[in-house]
């Protein structure tokens, strides 16, 4: 007990050196442990999401981009496919398709255009409000609601795609009608709208004054018995309200409308296998992938990097330990007179060893506690750190 007291007093007196030693030991211990925690969390997040998504249909190209956009709402937009791909999946009778159009964002959060089937499929429950019902309505994930302070009754403006594209996508003011319960998945970070609303943001669907009733001649470029050509000045609504919702309409063939990906939910294993076989032919413009396999490949790359990092940590750790030993050795030499004094005061060599051991014990204990605290902190924030580091 006395040895601990004397060791503590000594360490407090040499506080700068003590803090340096504690920091070195803490870092050496906390770094590999934190990395392990983060990798476990990233594996859990990536894999569980991928495992819960049986098949993903998209345009041929980077399978990783497709998975990251469809599963984690990454802002890298893959090549688009058309709604015809969704119809073909329906008609195949092998799987239920859930289309996704994840291309736009609102205040830094992705807007996911989909159908109500997505919420059933992911098991998303409402914490407050109601489900999207009308064009222009949105339900936000728990993190979006928390960080932007949004709830039912609020509005959220979609972000223009580029600042300089004045003729590009108009922002749409969306009405927030619900907030999902926290799911600890990327769904917490998304703004969900009906896919038709996403097409309105795209400009495929829009609402405007009835051109056949317009009296302002500056809005009409040409009018005859067969048709009216409106000028670009014709005002298009940027908010969907009960008063103007009937004016919203879509142009062209609905089968040609874009989607970024289609989640295919096969009716059984056999149907899934048949479906995959159909998309294997090289001439097709679409691919069907198993997200779990793509994420497995990604994780293997991450673990390869982890092995390199582990090696670096081992080398740095060994060097640090050697440096610590040197510090202790030098410290003993510097404290030679002090140790002699202790000896002359009547302390045995064993007591001197106790004193030095107590110092090492205190440094180790404090570093251990700090290391545990750091690992717990990383674990607590692991979900967000992983999303920031590996997903977004």
């Amino acid at each position, binding site marked *: 007990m006395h040895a601990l007291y004397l060791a503590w007093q000594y360490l407090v007196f040499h506080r700068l050196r003590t803090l340096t030693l504690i920091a070195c030991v803490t870092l050496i211990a906390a770094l590999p442990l934190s990395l392990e925690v983060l990798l476990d969390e990233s594996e859990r997040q990536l894999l569980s999401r991928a495992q819960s998504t049986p098949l993903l249909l998209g345009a041929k190209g980077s399978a990783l981009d497709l998975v990251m956009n469809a599963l984690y709402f990454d802002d890298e937009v893959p090549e688009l496919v058309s709604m015809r791909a969704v119809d073909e999946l329906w008609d195949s009778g092998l799987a239920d398709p859930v289309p996704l159009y994840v291309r736009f964002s609102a205040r830094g959060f992705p807007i996911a255009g989909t159908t*109500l*089937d997505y919420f*059933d499929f992911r098991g998303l429950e409402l914490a407050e409000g109601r*489900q999207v*019902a009308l*064009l222009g309505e949105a339900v936000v994930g728990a993190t979006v609601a928390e960080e932007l302070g949004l709830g039912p009754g609020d509005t959220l403006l979609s972000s223009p795609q580029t600042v300089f594209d004045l003729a590009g996508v108009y922002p749409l003011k969306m009405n927030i009608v619900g907030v999902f319960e926290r799911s600890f998945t990327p769904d917490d970070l998304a703004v969900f709208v009906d896919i038709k609303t996403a097409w309105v943001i795209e400009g495929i669907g829009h609402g405007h004054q009835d051109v056949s009733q317009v009296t302002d001649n500056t809005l009409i470029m040409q009018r005859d018995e067969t*048709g009216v050509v409106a000028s670009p000045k014709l005002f298009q609504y940027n908010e969907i309200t009960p008063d103007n919702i009937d004016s919203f309409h879509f142009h062209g063939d609905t089968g040609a409308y874009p989607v970024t990906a289609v989640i295919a939910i096969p009716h059984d294993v056999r149907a899934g296998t048949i479906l995959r076989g159909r998309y294997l032919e090289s001439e097709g413009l679409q691919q069907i992938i198993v997200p779990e396999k793509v994420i497995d490949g990604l994780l293997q790359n991450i673990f390869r990097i982890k092995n390199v990092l582990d090696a670096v940590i081992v080398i740095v750790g060994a060097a640090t330990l050697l440096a610590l030993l040197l510090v202790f050795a030098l410290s003993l030499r510097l404290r030679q007179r002090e140790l002699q004094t202790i000896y002359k005061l009547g302390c045995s060599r064993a007591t001197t060893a106790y004193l030095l051991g107590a110092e090492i014990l205190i440094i180790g204990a404090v570093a251990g506690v700090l290391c545990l605290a750091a690992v717990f902190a990383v674990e607590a924030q692991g979900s967000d750190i992983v999303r920031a580091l590996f997903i977004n």
Partner: protein
Amino acid sequence: MMKSTARIVSLCLLLVSMAPSAAERLAVYTVNYPLQYFAERIAGGQAEVVFPAPADGDPAFWKPDAAAIGAYQRADLVLLNGADYARWVAQVSLPNRRLVDTSAAFAGRLIKTETGVAHSHGAGEEHSHAGTAFTTWLDPQQAILQAWAIKRALVKKRPQAEAEFEGNFAALESDLRALDTELKNILSNARGQALLASHPVYQYFARAYDLDLHSVLWEPEAFPAEEQWNELAGLAATHAATWMLWEGEPLPESVARLEQMGIGSLVFDPCGNVPEAGDYLDVMQANLARLRQALTGGAQ
């Protein structure tokens, strides 16, 4: 005697216990009354079929409120008429996996109607908001196909009741075929005969029975404006009709003035909404009786 009574009672109890409880019954929502009728006939006790539109309007132009949309969203099946019927469907979010487009089987034979001038936005592609004739069920053959789509969706949803659905569908199909046969018999005499319709809702009916039908835009409960009468007089020069089909009972003044022009009035209720009395087949039988009376003078 006691023994047989006990047997009957036990059989009844057994049947009652086998019938699905309210919680086990499928919740089926429809967008018009004919689909509700077909679904009720086919599903029997396996489903609760709901058509939430108010009874006093045209369901084609009804718009559900948020509560009704929520109910549609929670339904096990939502039966759509297709053919642009109930345009509100395009403006709301419904679960695709539970939607059934009952007219998909004859989507390629739907009749397009122009409802507005073509227009374009600046240099954009010119387009028009063309509509589609939506009273598909007035052609009984199409009605059978719609009923078949309902049966298929129900079987997919509850395969264990397939035999019941098949039996019920066969009975409904037989009724609709009988209706078709009767209509053919009556209308064979009217083939090529000029007819008028107060509203453009009889396109499929006219096509099915090869009728020379021309529609105006009159409402049964409103006396047409003088301009509309003039238009009708102009039309009569090229389309000498002797009968006008009405969706509902027209005003006596309208009937009288039409009679002065040599045009009789005949109610043919499309039955898009729940009838005040009877069911879909009753309404169609009443339509048949009026047609028979008008076109054949009551001869069977």
